[in-house]
């Protein structure tokens, strides 16, 4: 630690540049990661809504509806199907209009259609399922959220792809700048490195102070970026709350784990902090190692 602080004190401007470059990179990375998580959470949310709702003519027999349900389930493209009978539809209607007795008097279970709420395995299957249902006898109307899901999918894909390109560019620039800064530092320590080589120091012994410094800057920059990012997020929280009113939570589904993205919680923030810190330390170390390698050959 003492050597690390001496090194920073000896090269204050290089150290500041090192910190700022990493901070800028990690701050942008945090925004990108947050945005992607949020969008995927939103996509998951929309996908978890009934994606295709098919309403049947009132005269359609329940057995025909069940037959159609079984056909859809056997297609392999459907995750689940929920059947809403005329009675259930009427109960829902009653619940929705319990404050309006006039509306309740005008409607009976007979005139409400039975329906199937279909959840597809992939949004990709939605148009196909909808088209199939439209052709079936006894079907009155088919509703599906193609437009919303399509737009969200397109948006998520665009952001994902452009984030990767931007991210790659960011990493490239950061490594180049960090390498240049480390080169300055190595040049200042040239005599020391030469002496260490003559004394029999191995490559790792020489690299160690640079690696320690890289870890320090990676962590410190990530922490600063995280604190500023948190401040912004908590400042924007009330606005986001009102914007996302009605959405209880946005969740990312991993194989063994469900990560709640919204409402903002410490677990999610801690995970993205760990990710950016890890990333910051890795690129910082990589840049240092590339820069120093030629001096210890």
């Amino acid at each position, binding site marked *: 630690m003492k050597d690390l602080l*001496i090194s920073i004190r*000896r090269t204050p401007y290089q150290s500041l540049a090192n910190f700022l470059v990493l901070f800028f990179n990690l701050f942008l990375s945090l925004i990108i990661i947050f945005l992607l998580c949020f969008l995927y959470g939103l996509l998951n949310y929309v996908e978890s809504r009934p994606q295709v709702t098919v309403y049947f003519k009132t005269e359609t027999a329940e057995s025909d509806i069940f037959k159609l349900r079984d056909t859809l389930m056997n297609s392999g493209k459907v995750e689940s199907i929920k059947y809403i009978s005329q009675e259930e539809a009427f109960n829902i209607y009653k619940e929705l209009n319990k404050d309006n007795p006039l509306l309740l008097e005008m409607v009976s279970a007979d005139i409400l259609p039975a329906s199937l709420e279909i959840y597809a395995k992939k949004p990709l299957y939605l148009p196909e399922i909808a088209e199939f249902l439209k052709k079936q006898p006894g079907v009155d109307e088919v509703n599906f959220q193609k437009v919303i899901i399509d737009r969200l999918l397109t948006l998520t894909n665009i952001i994902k792809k452009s984030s990767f390109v931007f991210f790659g560019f960011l990493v490239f620039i950061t490594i180049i700048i960090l390498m240049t800064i480390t080169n300055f530092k190595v040049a200042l320590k040239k*005599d*020391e490195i030469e*002496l*260490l*080589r*003559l*004394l*029999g*120091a*191995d490559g790792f*012994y020489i690299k160690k102070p640079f690696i320690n410094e890289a870890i320090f800057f990676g962590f410190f920059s990530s922490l600063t970026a995280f604190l500023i990012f948190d401040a912004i997020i908590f400042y924007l929280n009330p606005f986001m709350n009102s914007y996302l009113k009605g959405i209880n939570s946005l969740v990312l589904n991993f194989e063994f784990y469900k990560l709640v993205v919204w409402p903002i919680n410490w677990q999610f923030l801690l995970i993205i902090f760990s990710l950016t810190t890890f990333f910051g330390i890795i690129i910082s170390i990589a840049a240092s190692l590339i820069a120093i390698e030629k001096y210890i050959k």
Partner: protein
Amino acid sequence: MIKFDNVSKKFPLGNLALNNISFEIEDNEFVFLVGPSGAGKTTILKLILREFLPTSGSIIVNDFDLTGKKFNRLEDLRRKIGVVFQDFKILPEKNVFENVALSLKVSHIAEKEVKKRVKEALELVGLPNKSQVFPIQLSAGELQRVAIARAICGEREIIIADEPTGNIDPKTTWDILKIFKKLEGKKTIIIATHNVDIVNSLKKRVLVIKEGKLIKDNRKGGYEL
């Protein structure tokens, strides 16, 4: 043991620094390497440290054969050799203790052991109370003592010194030589110098180098220009 067998060194620009040199230095021997500037003394020391390779011939240092291009024991070799430079090569931002300790730390010796051995080395060179002092506060003679302390620390069996008294006054020169005398018989010592007085006063083996050739190997000591 250090063995040079028909060693020549030609630099890329064509100048021949060493021309077919052969000699052997036994373990714990005290040897002066003398000759005018540019004779090839430093080249011999650098070849022992394997800072570069000979153009032809073979070099053996202890159990290390330095001749082959593939050599993956460079750190092990250098950890056996302590070097004293004319310009001291003391790191200005580290204090005396830290400068001497470097020699041990590169060999990954435990902190407790480092403290003990650095203390012993500083006592040997007559600087027991200067361990926390920074180089800027030391005289040239004291700096050279620090360099010697660094060179003798650890498991270093060979001490090579390149003009160790070149930058210091005559009185301090003798103090420095006394330190080398204390090490006699414990480590192999090779001192490159062109100071006739030093060489003649100690009566140790002298290898005289001139224009890259070994022109005299005087085991009884003594040297004339």
